[in-house]
């Protein structure tokens, strides 16, 4: 009964609306026809005449109007800048994934080929499975970005084409090649011989890297233009390509892509783990997540150094831009970055510690966690200490300035460099402990080897601390150079210790690793890591692009659009967040599609025999 009432009410409402609108048109017509002429003749009413005249005039006016090239067009609601920003960000995130996965898929496949261990081959295949859908997304988003740019920034895009038109054809050709390689690599996994297949993988990586290098040329040119006259006229496309920041960005992006790709792959594994029904599945995806995370963190460790190189090139190009980045409007962005990276390190270590639960005999290392945590927390705190502190007027007066007399020491470069280096070293020790927890060395010199490893760590840490503290006593010009021995000692220590470890654990007695026996929490940590990586990429993309401030091409082509201003960090973080959420929604689709394909090819892996410690 009730339902029918509602139905009747709806019908009545619709009918009512129709009647009213009909009435309105009718009345309009009535009013128009009030003119006596209209009653007697077919001739048009004065109103109609006036309307016709108006229309004719408008047409004439439009015809007479010369074509004016538009400089900017406006995207509805969110504005052109945000539209392009989000499209570019999404495109880049997918592109990063598509470029990164082949790198470590190929390496894993190679390991599988060399060791003859089929599990690695399966793992590589599983990673690749994520690729094809992601590739289509990348291409689609790339097209969207291009359309948006041409539509919204026609004038500026015209200029970029003026400089970079010679690079377009190679780009498109490479893109075709990429598609050919990718699909043949994926679909031909079991079709080709392993060697041919590996070559396909290599080709895929080379082409992918080349594509990225070309695209990087465009965007680095916007930041640090070269090869053009002051008026903007092109002098040399090659010079425009090889500008100041091109190579640093290439390297930085390559490493960051691997870190990002690894973390997204790990998130995929985590997602599958959580949905898994059988212990076998759980074991497999636990392992996959572990490998993905390993790749991500291994790439994360050298990333700050690549970042330093990039920053120093920016300084070399323009001190103004460098100071804008570090001292100016963007300085607070690096505090947010510190929080993100601190979270990354903390979460990565946390995952490893949780992972110790699945290894028999890991208990003996459990007591070290406390100290590692204290060091990591300390470094995190130092890194997140702002140079100039947000404080109330009273607090500022109490401090005698915007930096705190005690905390001020932690806000400067010496302290931060030291913190980063120690953080990297500590994370590496966490890894080492994890690796060790499953094995007991049997070589005779095990004790001595351990002692040497410890000594190397102590030496590296001492070097880092020494230069960190010494940095307060020397002038800035000298201090800047201190980062070299700091970074050097950390890198050297990591390499040396790894080498020793490989020999030390030769023929080690291995305890059981119970893959799949890990708390669900750890899998959420993996997903959290992926979100944080993605968000961090979004944020750093913003700062790289934002540094240009009100320029399309820094110092050459000015941005005169209404969006030329640099938005607040709060706004930027909102855009980044929305983009990240959209990305993860898309990613969900990719995962879902990948899992559809895998339904009938479930990994049949002997869980107990899995050995993930040695990558």
């Amino acid at each position, binding site marked *: 009964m009730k339902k029918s009432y509602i139905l009747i009410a709806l019908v009545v409402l619709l009918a009512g609306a129709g009647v009213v609108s009909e009435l309105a048109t009718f009345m309009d017509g009535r009013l128009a026809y009030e003119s006596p002429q209209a009653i007697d003749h077919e001739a048009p009413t004065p109103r109609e005449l006036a309307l016709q005249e108006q229309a004719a005039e408008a047409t004439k006016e439009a015809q007479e109007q010369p074509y004016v090239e538009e*400089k900017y067009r406006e995207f509805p609601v969110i504005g052109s800048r945000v539209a392009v920003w989000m499209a570019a960000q999404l495109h880049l995130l997918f592109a990063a994934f598509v470029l990164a996965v082949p790198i470590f898929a190929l390496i894993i496949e190679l390991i599988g080929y060399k060791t003859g261990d089929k599990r690695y081959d399966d793992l590589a295949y599983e990673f690749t499975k994520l690729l094809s859908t992601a590739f289509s997304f990348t291409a689609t988003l790339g097209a969207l970005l291009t359309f948006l740019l041409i539509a919204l920034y026609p*004038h500026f895009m015209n200029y970029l084409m003026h400089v970079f038109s010679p690079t377009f054809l190679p780009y498109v050709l490479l893109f075709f090649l990429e598609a050919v390689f990718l699909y043949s690599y994926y679909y031909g996994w079991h079709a080709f011989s392993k060697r041919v297949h590996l070559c396909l993988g290599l080709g895929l990586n080379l082409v992918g890297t080349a594509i990225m290098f070309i695209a990087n040329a465009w965007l680095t040119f916007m930041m640090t233009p070269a090869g053009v*006259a*002051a*008026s*903007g006229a092109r002098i040399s496309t090659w010079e425009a390509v090889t500008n100041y920041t091109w190579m640093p960005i290439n390297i930085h992006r390559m490493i960051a892509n691997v870190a990002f790709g690894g973390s997204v792959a790990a998130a995929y594994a985590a*997602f599958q783990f*959580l*949905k898994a029904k059988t212990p076998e599945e759980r074991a497999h995806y636990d392992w996959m997540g572990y490998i993905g995370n390993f790749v991500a963190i291994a790439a994360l460790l050298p990333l700050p150094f690549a970042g330093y190189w990039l920053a120093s090139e920016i300084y070399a190009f323009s001190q103004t831009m460098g100071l804008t980045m570090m001292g100016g*409007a963007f300085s*607070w*962005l690096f*505090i*947010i970055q510190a*929080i*993100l990276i601190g979270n990354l390190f903390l979460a990565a270590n946390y995952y490893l510690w949780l992972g110790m639960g699945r290894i028999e005999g890991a208990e003996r290392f459990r007591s070290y966690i406390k100290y590692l945590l204290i060091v990591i927390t300390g470094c995190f705190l130092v890194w997140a200490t702002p140079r100039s502190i*947000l404080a109330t007027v009273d607090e500022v007066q109490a401090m005698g300035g915007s930096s705190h007399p005690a905390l001020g020491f932690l806000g400067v470069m010496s302290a931060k460099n030291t913190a980063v280096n120690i953080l990297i070293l500590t994370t590496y020790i966490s890894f080492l402990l994890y690796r060790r927890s499953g094995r007991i060395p049997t070589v005779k010199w095990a004790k001595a080897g351990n002692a040497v490893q410890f000594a190397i760590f102590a030496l590296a840490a001492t070097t880092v601390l020494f230069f960190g503290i010494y940095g307060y006593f020397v002038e800035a010009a000298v201090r800047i150079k201190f980062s070299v021995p700091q970074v050097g000692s950390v890198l050297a220590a990591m390499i040396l210790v790894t080498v020793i470890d490989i020999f030390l654990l030769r023929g080690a007695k291995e305890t059981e690793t119970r893959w799949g026996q890990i708390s669900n929490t750890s899998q*959420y940590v993996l*997903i*959290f890591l992926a*979100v*944080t990586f993605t*968000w961090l990429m979004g944020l750093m993309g913003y700062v790289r692009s934002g540094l240009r*401030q*009100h320029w399309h091409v820094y*110092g050459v*082509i*000015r*941005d*005169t659009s209404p969006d*030329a*201003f*640099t*938005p*607040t*960090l*709060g706004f*930027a*973080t*909102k855009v*980044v*967040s929305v983009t*990240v*959420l959209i990305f*993860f929604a898309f990613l*969900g689709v990719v995962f879902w599609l990948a899992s559809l394909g895998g339904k009938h090819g479930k990994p049949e892996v002997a869980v107990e025999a899995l050995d993930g410690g040695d990558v």
Partner: protein
Amino acid sequence: MQIPVPLKVAILTIAATGFYTYVGQLVPQKEVHPPEVVEMSSDLSTADLVEIGEGIMSGKGLCFTCHTVGKSGALRFPDLDGVAIRAGSRRPGYDELTYLAESLYHPDVFIVEGFSAGMPQISKPPIGLTDDEIRAVIAYLQTLGGQATMTMDTVVPFSAAAPDGPLSAASEAVDDGTATGSDEAEVEGAA
């Protein structure tokens, strides 16, 4: 009450991004705008114009990207020191004001010996100075070796407000900018 995994993951993702957004709101919020467009009311004094002009030269006009004041040696663009002294005598029939105005509105028409063309039309985008801004720039240039006489009422040749004068033909030829060849011809003719 078992929450499905995708939902949990979604909640985690939203919570994490939400947290970072929150952190982003805690830091100082500064919006950096491009160099301000100087509001030029019609009652500015000559001294005001000079000051604004100097600001435009170093800011919006980007003049000092290329030009220098008080430098010598191998320069890519003419040094502007003492430009007011030279301006009145450089081209026959051109007084100081006309010369400066032409150099600003149509920089390629007359090229100082020893230099090559390359200055963009600053009255057009991307620099896009308005007539009044160019007025201020001229006022500043007048002080470089001379005395500023520019007022808001002075009619600046080549500007939109200028009546058709003997030079408008030349300016039109340059204005449409379709054929560089014709520009060169003008240069020849004018020189």
